């Protein structure tokens, strides 16, 4: 009798042993990602965010997942439209029951989505929404592994002051990101370098012809033209500024505030206009890499044939934050997850250790986002071969800037 019971229990245990992995497979941890997979939003960014998330998810799942469960990412296409982003997040939380959201990459959409995440009290990791307003709302559910406008604008203002220029014109796209960055740069210049004459022009990101905005600069070219724009509009502005002979020139530097050369389609769209572009950038091969970042870079190269860029790493980092949060909380409960993400030491891909608790643009933001300034000195130049005007953690050195003859 006893032997029979022991046999039954052993059989049950063995069955459970076989069933558990299957259960883990059937009961994965669901993470929601709302991104742009079709126009009119930036499909280019959406593709990179998805690539970064998929690579990290596959790496984590191959090692057994999190808390013994596989990670499954549910994607929703928001088309870069705030209303669609809001609906996507509502569906992901209410219907699909995701434990957290990540992947937001367009400020206007993020601003709509965080309202839903805040109302339903689900963690939301901002991958690439630069607008300070995402932080200023002070929502405890929102964590920012993304760069932010104050950082970029203060760095660019400091660079412009160091260069000793007199007149600067900025072209900003008509989005929360573009206008926010251009305004902030102006405010910071007013505080730190009031001698610099600065103005910005808002351009429609869906437009194709910017000649009329460029032509007035031909008669009186500024010392620097700042671009607070994203592709594809940024490429067109670059081409048209070049075609009109305004910049880059011996007189005028073209200064990009979005790390445009990082995009896989940069050179195929700008060709000769890209030479002599000075760029504020969030990724350079000389930056410190963690082993996981190196592994992701290799896998990205294998899958896409392109070199890694900052957005792929940012995407992976935002998913990594959720994964480490779940491991720390030992739970997928939203409250516990938020608490864990607020207090844990985050071992990230790019050096994030924790988030600021100061209100305003710093709220739950990783403040020390590393950046560089480099110049593209030849056509089709890979980023690794660009001239570093400001190496990671170093001072900006204007003497290194090369100007066209």
């Amino acid at each position: 009798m006893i032997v029979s019971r022991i046999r039954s229990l052993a059989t049950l245990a063995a069955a459970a042993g076989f069933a558990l992995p299957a259960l883990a497979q059937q009961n994965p941890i669901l993470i929601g990602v709302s991104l742009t997979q079709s126009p009119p939003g930036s499909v280019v960014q959406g593709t990179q965010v998805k690539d970064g998330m998929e690579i990290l998810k596959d790496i984590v799942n191959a090692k057994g997942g999190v808390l013994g469960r596989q990670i499954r990412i549910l994607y929703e296409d928001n088309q870069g439209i705030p209303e669609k982003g809001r609906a996507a997040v509502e569906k992901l939380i209410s219907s699909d029951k995701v434990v957290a959201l990540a992947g937001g990459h367009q400020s206007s959409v993020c601003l709509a989505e965080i309202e839903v995440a805040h109302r339903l009290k689900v963690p939301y990791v901002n991958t690439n929404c630069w607008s300070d307003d995402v932080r200023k709302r002070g929502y405890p559910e929102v964590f920012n592994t993304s760069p932010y406008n104050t950082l970029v604008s203060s760095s660019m203002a400091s660079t412009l002051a160091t260069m000793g220029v007199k007149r600067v014109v900025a072209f900003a796209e008509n989005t929360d990101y573009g206008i926010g960055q251009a305004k902030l740069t102006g405010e910071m210049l007013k505080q730190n370098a009031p001698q610099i004459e600065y103005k910005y022009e808002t351009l429609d990101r869906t437009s194709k012809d910017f000649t009329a905005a460029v032509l007035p600069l031909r008669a009186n070219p500024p010392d620097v033209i700042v671009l607070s724009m994203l592709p594809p509009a940024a490429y067109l502005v670059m081409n048209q500024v070049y075609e009109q002979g305004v910049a880059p020139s011996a007189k005028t530097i073209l200064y990009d505030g979005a790390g445009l050369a990082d995009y896989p389609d940069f050179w195929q769209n700008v060709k000769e206009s890209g030479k002599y572009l000075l760029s504020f950038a969030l990724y350079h091969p000389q930056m410190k890499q963690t082993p996981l970042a190196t592994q992701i870079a290799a896998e990205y190269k294998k899958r896409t044939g392109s070199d890694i860029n900052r957005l792929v790493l940012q995407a992976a980092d935002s998913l990594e934050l959720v994964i480490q949060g779940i491991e720390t909380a030992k739970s997928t409960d939203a409250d516990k997850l938020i608490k864990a993400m607020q207090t844990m030491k985050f071992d990230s891909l790019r050096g994030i250790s924790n988030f600021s608790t100061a209100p305003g643009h710093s709220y739950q933001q990783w403040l020390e986002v590393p950046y560089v300034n480099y110049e593209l000195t030849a056509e089709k130049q890979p980023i690794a071969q660009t001239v570093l005007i400001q190496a990671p953690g170093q001072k900006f050195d204007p003497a290194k800037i090369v100007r066209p003859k």
Partner: protein
Amino acid sequence: MLALDLLINGLIYGCFYALTAVGLAMIFGVLKVVNFAHGEFFMIGAYTYVLVSLKLGVSPWIALPGAAIAGALLGWVVERLLMRPLYAGYASWGFMKDEYAVVVTFGLSLLLINLVDKTVGPYSFRGPSLVDFGRFALGPVMLTGQKAIAALVAVALMVGLALFIRRSVWGLQIQAVAQNRLGASLAGIDATRTTSLIFVISGALAALSGALLAPLVNPSPDIGAFPAIKSFVIVVLGGMGSIWGAMIAALIIGVAEAFFSVYISYDYRDAFGLIVLVAVLLFRPQGLLGEKGREL
């Protein structure tokens, strides 16, 4: 000097707008429906030009007619499969003609955008220039070789179209069908074949416009939205269905946008076309060459 710059650039862009818009005007002139997929004809032309020349390594001068053929083929297929029910053998659909055309062409537009997005990818491409020389100064005006040559080709195409419509037998048939479809049929004109021809021409012109602009606007899957919106404004401004009206309106819009955006505000650049449209329609509800211009 700035004014001259603006005038030249405005006229050049006006030529490009005209090339795209006349096809839309022709379709409206004959079928009295709006083709919401017209921008995607432009997109197909731009992509054909870029992919044939960049991926196959073919000369841009060969890729250019290749784009026209792709646009013409698309136009023919669209007419044959989607538009023919509007007038051939589907009498019971007659009362919902407008609704049918809107749904079908809008659906086609979304299908083509997403098809290209998924098959070619979301990344934009800058097409190769038709000529090797880059920027050059023409007096006080700075131009690129591509912009200048594309404008010349666009003007030549419009002159060719005008001669075709006025002088050729097919052109006269198009005019007849546009004026009175039933009357033209009674006179022995094959109205179905003529409609098919209009779609072929419309597709080819929009595709050629896309190909000529490909080195200037860097095509991506959603590139068709920009010429489509302009074309709708131009067709209404010129007088619904009038080719000549569309050409004149396109030049007016191109120049108005250039001047207004510099002397008033760049922020409202795309709104200026609409302001001009409203202003003209207040005094001429039929558009610039409506009614009289209805004959093609």
